[in-house]
Structures are given as C-alpha cells and as structure tokens.
C-alpha cells in the first residue's frame, strides 16, 4: 500500500487520475488515514457536498494481508449530516482487494460540472474512469449485477444507490460481500451523499493477478496470525455466540437491561423482542435454508453476518444486524422479522443507513405519519425515500430533518446523527460517548477494546460520574486506533479478555511494518486521530454545545428502571482532557 489514487472530478476535459506515492501518509491506514487526509486537505468550512470536500476510501493497516479479520474499509469526508469530520467503516471484500492492488487510499476530489455519473474501474494495470449515465438511479443490487455482466464475478464494488445520487444525509456507501452482493455499508453520516456529489456511482475493483501484501517479517507475522485466530476461536463470544446468532444476540439482553429503545426512545423494553431476537432469527434462517454463520469477507473467522431467506426460501437480504433489527423493529414497534428484513433489503438497495432510517421512521411515527407497529407503513415510507418523493426527501435526510419538518420535540440525535440501539439513560457510560464522540452519536466510537490491558482505564468508582468520563475517553482512544488497523471491532472481546490475543494483534502490526509496536503506541495513535478530528470539528464550528444529548434524556424517566441521564455538562466537557 505505497500509493494513493486521486481522482479529480473537476478537471477540465473530465475526471483526471493521478497515482502518487503515499508520502506524508505512509504508515497510516483506515480511520487514521481518512481523518488525516480530511483534516489536512479539506477546509473545515467547506460545504460537504461542494468541490472542496474529499471522499477518502482507505483499507486498514493490515488489510490485504493474510491476517484474519483485517477486512474493514474506512470511508471519510466532511459529513453532510453532522457538519463535522466523519469516518464510517464497513466489512465486505473491497478493503482486501484495494490493499492488494497497492492503494493506501482512493481520494475523490472536486465535483463534475455536468450532472453526469461515472464508473471507476481499477485493476493491476491501471485506472479507468468512464461516464455512464445508464447507471442513474439504479439500486445497489441491480448496479452490482450490471457490473458483474461487464467485468465478471471476480470483482468487488463500492457504490451508492439512489439515496446517494439524491445526496441525502442518510445515504450510505455500499460494499459487496463474498457473494458479490451489496450488503455491507459504511452507513453513518451521509457519506453516500458525498460520493454522489462527486458524480461517482461505483468503483469496481479487480485484484486479479495480485497477491497478498507481504509483511516485513513473514515468520513472525504468520505465527502471530495463528495465535490471533486461536484466540478468536476459543473465546465464547467470537468463537461461539457471534457465529451462532450474529450481532442480534444482543437484543434480548439489552431488552432485559431496560436499555432497548422502544417507540422512539419512549420505553426501555419491547414486548416483541423474543420474536425478533438473534436467537429467533438464527433458528428461522436455518429452517428456511438461509445461514446464520457466514463471513462478510474472506479471512473472517468470526462469521457473524448470515443470510436471510424469505418465507419461500429465496434469498432476501443478509442477516439483519442488531442495530438494524432494533432500529426498524423495537424503535418502531415492529415485531415481524420478515418486515424488518424487507426494510433492510430496501435500505441496502437504495443505499441508506439502517440506524438513521429506523430512527427517522420512529420520529415520523411519533409525528403521526404512520402508526407504531405498522410494518407495511414503514416499508412504504422507505419506498418513498427510494422514489425521491417530497416526503421521501425529508425522511432520507434523517431523523433531525424529519423532526424539524414535522415539529417533533423528541428527536434522538447528537450532532444531527441518530442514536444507535442503547438508551443512554439506562447505560450512562455509553451516553457519554454518544454525546462527545467526534462522529455524532455512535455506538462504535467507544468500543470495549482492551483499555484494561492497555492500562489506560485505571480504577473507576462506579458511583462517580468521573468514572464514566474516564472510561469513555479511553474507549474512544482505543477505538480510534483499532479503526485504523482495518480490524473488525468484534475482535474486541477476545482481545480484551485474553492478553495473548491482544499481544498477537500488536505482533501482527509489528511484523507487517517491521517495527516494535507496543500498547503505548496504540494509545498514541488513537489520541493523534482524535486530536485531528477534534481540531477539524472545532474549526468547522462544532462547539461544546453540540457535545450534548437531547434534552428529553435528562427530563423523561425511562421505564422500567425509571432513570434519566445524570452525567453533568461539566463532566462531559472533560472527556478530551488529556
């Protein structure tokens, strides 16, 4: 990964391609690279859909190698949803393929003068950018089928659906999985709209004739990978729970904890949870000939993605994830897993963030646009988004926009981005991360990644809010670093619990780059990334006033525990004091 692919969409005579050495960004990957480029090259006050914004697509530091779980791909830009810096990452095949082609990142710059759409094709022989307006308003599924017809099935696609073309703030960037289906998404923050503003409908990657990225110390790398894989396989979460039930295994326990937001964050429990849980989903998938145990990219050993078939036994969508099932399920009062799966399919096809759309429909239901629990009405609302009707344009721009359009007070967003599937009143610690993350409300911003092993967590008094602040800070630091490696965050449990697995991760990085990486280096990387992001956001006009949860989380009691969010503003402002 020694080169950058820059495509200037504003160039006279059509898009101009330049392949240049990675230069000052050498050694960075994933979130570290996207946030470095955006913070250094994008004017913070630039319009997110304007020519000065840049869309950066970067494989992780270990992508393209034989390292297990190294297939996350980061997408970064200034977000049209939050107005700040954004990194959203996805599984799928593209990260490995892009890395094997030797690119540390693809950077889309400028903006085409005409309303044309382009296809970018990249293989070992070079890059070709083609104007192709026949792709206009194609859903991601039809688009990928068309690409298969043109380029064969040994490709990986990065694409946008109609939502991205319409530059909606909930638009995602889609990544194809191992079966060449557009099921994996960099969903958060409206990055699909930025890709749409660049006029790029799809990037087709073909790594035929390339080989794995070679580590500096192959023997050490191979040994570390074996230890890493062994650690993942022997841990009950990564070796058993996730492969058996997928991420939606969380639904029942979050519901039991009274932290499962229901009916637009009105309650903390949903009566229909057992009908839409991961356990129920997995049994249904097996009965219909689907598969609850499936990797989203080659080299995945956890295999938590899964395949969902309809009642007739035909493929409908990938196994809807925990966040998706919650957003379109409990949050909207819908307990029909088939309706939720259809919503997932439509989101993927139109290219929409499932969390944002579920929260948006919840707000629309609170506004009286549809009745809570009416799955068919929810499907119709998503179809409005796909059609680009006036109502669909409002919904497709997210929960905050929908709340404003319909005069709803209870809108669950931070920095305009919808809250994920954990109510911060029940789990105060995650509320701190929602409020203060550089990304807007984001459940992955502060993940359980080995802060205890890194010894940056320290002793935390459970009765004092300072404890929440310190844990959130250190989780955000650790997560920023892991997001840079290209590793799937679901390695977290094994890495956290098993020191030898965490050491194996460090050894993988050390052996690949020929350095001696320590826990302190990981912490330093995470802090550096967060500092870039915080500085960009400050210059973009985001202040402490945006590091807050919506007012109703402090005022409304959440049943069944009848709790409110208690962490003070003064404490929230200490999160980034280091």
């Amino acid at each position, binding site marked *: 990964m020694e080169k950058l692919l820059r495509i200037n969409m504003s160039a006279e005579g059509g898009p101009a391609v330049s392949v240049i050495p990675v230069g000052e960004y050498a050694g960075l990957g994933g979130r570290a690279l996207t946030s470095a480029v955006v913070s250094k090259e994008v004017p913070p006050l630039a319009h997110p859909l304007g020519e000065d914004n840049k869309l950066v697509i970067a494989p992780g530091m270990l992508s393209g190698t034989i390292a297990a779980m190294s297939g996350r791909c980061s997408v970064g830009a200034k977000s049209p949803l939050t107005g700040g810096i954004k990194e959203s990452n996805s599984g799928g095949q593209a990260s490995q393929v892009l890395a094997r082609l030797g690119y540390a990142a693809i950077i889309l710059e400028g903006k085409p003068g005409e309303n044309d759409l382009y296809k970018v094709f990249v293989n070992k022989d070079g890059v070709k950018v083609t104007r192709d307006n026949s792709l206009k308003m194609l859903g991601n599924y039809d688009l990928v089928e068309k690409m298969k017809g043109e380029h064969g099935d040994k490709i990986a696609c990065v694409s946008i659906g109609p939502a991205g073309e319409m530059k909606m703030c909930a638009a995602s960037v889609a990544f194809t999985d191992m079966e060449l289906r557009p099921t994996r998404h960099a969903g958060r923050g409206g990055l699909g709209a930025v890709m749409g503003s660049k006029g790029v409908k799809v990037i087709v990657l073909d790594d035929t004739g390339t080989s794995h990225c070679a580590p500096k110390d192959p023997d050490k790398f191979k040994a570390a990978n074996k230890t890493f894989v062994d650690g993942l396989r022997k841990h*009950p979460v990564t070796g058993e729970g996730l492969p*058996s039930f997928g991420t939606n295994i969380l639904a*029942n326990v979050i519901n039991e904890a009274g932290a499962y937001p229901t009916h637009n964050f009105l309650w903390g429990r949903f009566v229909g949870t057992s009908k839409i849980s991961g356990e129920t989903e997995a049994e249904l998938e097996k009965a219909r000939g689907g598969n609850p145990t499936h990797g989203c990219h080659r080299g995945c050993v956890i295999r938590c993605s899964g395949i969902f078939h309809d009642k007739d036994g035909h493929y409908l969508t990938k196994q809807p994830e925990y966040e998706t099932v919650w957003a379109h399920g409990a949050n909207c009062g819908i307990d029909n897993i088939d309706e939720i799966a259809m919503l997932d399919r439509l989101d993927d096809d139109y290219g929409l963030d499932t969390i944002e759309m579920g929260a948006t429909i919840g707000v629309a239901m609170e506004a009286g646009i549809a009745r809570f629990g009416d799955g068919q009405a929810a499907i119709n609302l998503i179809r409005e988004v796909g059609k680009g009707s006036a109502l669909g344009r409002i919904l497709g721009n997210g929960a905050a926009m929908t709340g404003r359009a319909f005069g709803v007070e209870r809108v669950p967003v931070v920095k305009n981005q919808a809250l994920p599937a954990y109510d911060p009143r029940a*789990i105060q610690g995650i509320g701190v991360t929602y409020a203060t993350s550089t990304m807007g409300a984001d459940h992955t911003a502060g993940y*359980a990644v080995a802060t205890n092993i890194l010894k940056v967590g320290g002793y935390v008094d459970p009765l004092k809010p300072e404890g929440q602040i310190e844990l959130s800070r250190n989780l955000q630091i650790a997560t920023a670093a892991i997001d840079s490696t290209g590793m799937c965050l679901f390695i977290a449990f094994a890495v*956290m619990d098993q020191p030898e697995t965490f050491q194996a991760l460090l050894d993988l990085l050390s052996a690949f780059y020929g350095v001696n990486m320590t826990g302190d280096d990981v912490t330093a990387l995470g802090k550096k990334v967060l500092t870039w992001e915080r500085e960009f956001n400050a210059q973009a006009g985001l202040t402490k006033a945006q590091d807050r949860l919506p007012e109703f989380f402090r005022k409304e009691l959440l049943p069944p525990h009848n709790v409110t969010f208690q962490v003070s503003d003064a404490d929230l402002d200490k999160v980034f004091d280091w």
Partner: protein
Amino acid sequence: MTESNLAVPGAAGRLCLTVPADRVPCFFPLLQKGFVLGVPVGCPIRVLLRDGLGLTDEYIETRLQTVFLDGKPVDDIDGAFIRDGETLALAPAMPGLMGAMLRRGGFYAPMRSGITHRDDDNAAPRWIGEGRITMKLFGMALRELGPKLLERGIEVGAGDLSEVIRELPGDCREGLGDLEGLEGQARVTLRVTIAQEGKGTRD
C-alpha cells in the same frame, strides 16, 4: 419425569408434547420471553442455579457470564438473593461494549452503574423455601439449558404458547391434535419431550 417435577404450582392447564429434536427450537421464543418455574427461593442465585437447576459450578462460572435479577445486571451471584416472584435472566458473555458492560463483575460494569443490582436491593429474604420465579434464557444458555427445562416442564402464557404452536411447521404441528382448549386457559404447564424420530404427538 415425575408428575411433581412437571407440575408448576398455580398453573391451570397442562400440555405434554413430543416433538422431533430439530423442532425443539420452535419453543425457544417462550424461553426468551419468560416462563415460570417452581424452584427454591430465598437463597443466593448461585444456590438456585446449583441446587435448583442442577448446574455445576464450572458451568455457572464459565458459561453464565451475564445475569439479570428483575432486569438489573448482577455482579455477585453469591450476594444476590432470589425471592418469590422475581425474574432471573441467564446468558453467556455477550459481544460488544454493551456485552462487556453487562457482564457480571466486568471491567466496564461501572458504565451501567445506574441500573446495577445492589446487594441491599434484596439482602434480607423474607422467606426461604419453594417458590415461583420467572426465568429467561438467552444465547447459548437457551440452547444448552432450554431443552432440559422444557422436558422438566415450564409454565407459560396460553396465548404465547398458542402462537408458537400456530407457527410450527406443518409436519410438526400434524399429530399434535386439537389445541383449541388452550384458548380458555390463562396459563399452561408445558412439557416437551424429544421424539426419537417422526412427527410430533400430543401425549
């Protein structure tokens, strides 16, 4: 299986089914939603799990990493007492930050301190003896403990049971006979035994 094991005090109807092994998971939604069980109460959760359910200490320690008592995450299963009428939920270690937070005694437990079960929530059991609790099983605990408890007999809502039976695949529902009688009952004691082969039957 003896009649006394099967009976759940207070349940009205009774239904004994025999189904093929691969259809037992069809009943799992009932175990997730919650079922009533007659067990020793007034004792620490560990004692209930060991003496009431027959689980080994090793299983309890290694497999039951996430425990809720009346919806509150429990850190100390030796200090938390179960009382008549309470709800106990059991699950293995769960993924993600939330899974780490909810895990008993975990490093991230302080992040959910506002809802954590505290020993003084129920430190003084009012009564020690047989009682009725609602139990829920999640994740691998559902697969590992569910079939045994179904075989032992559980009390569930008749409406919930009817819904599950209606959703059973045709080949399994066939042979169970007329189940309309369930409609008149509020609660039903259900026992599910595993058939060696063939279709489901109603005993």
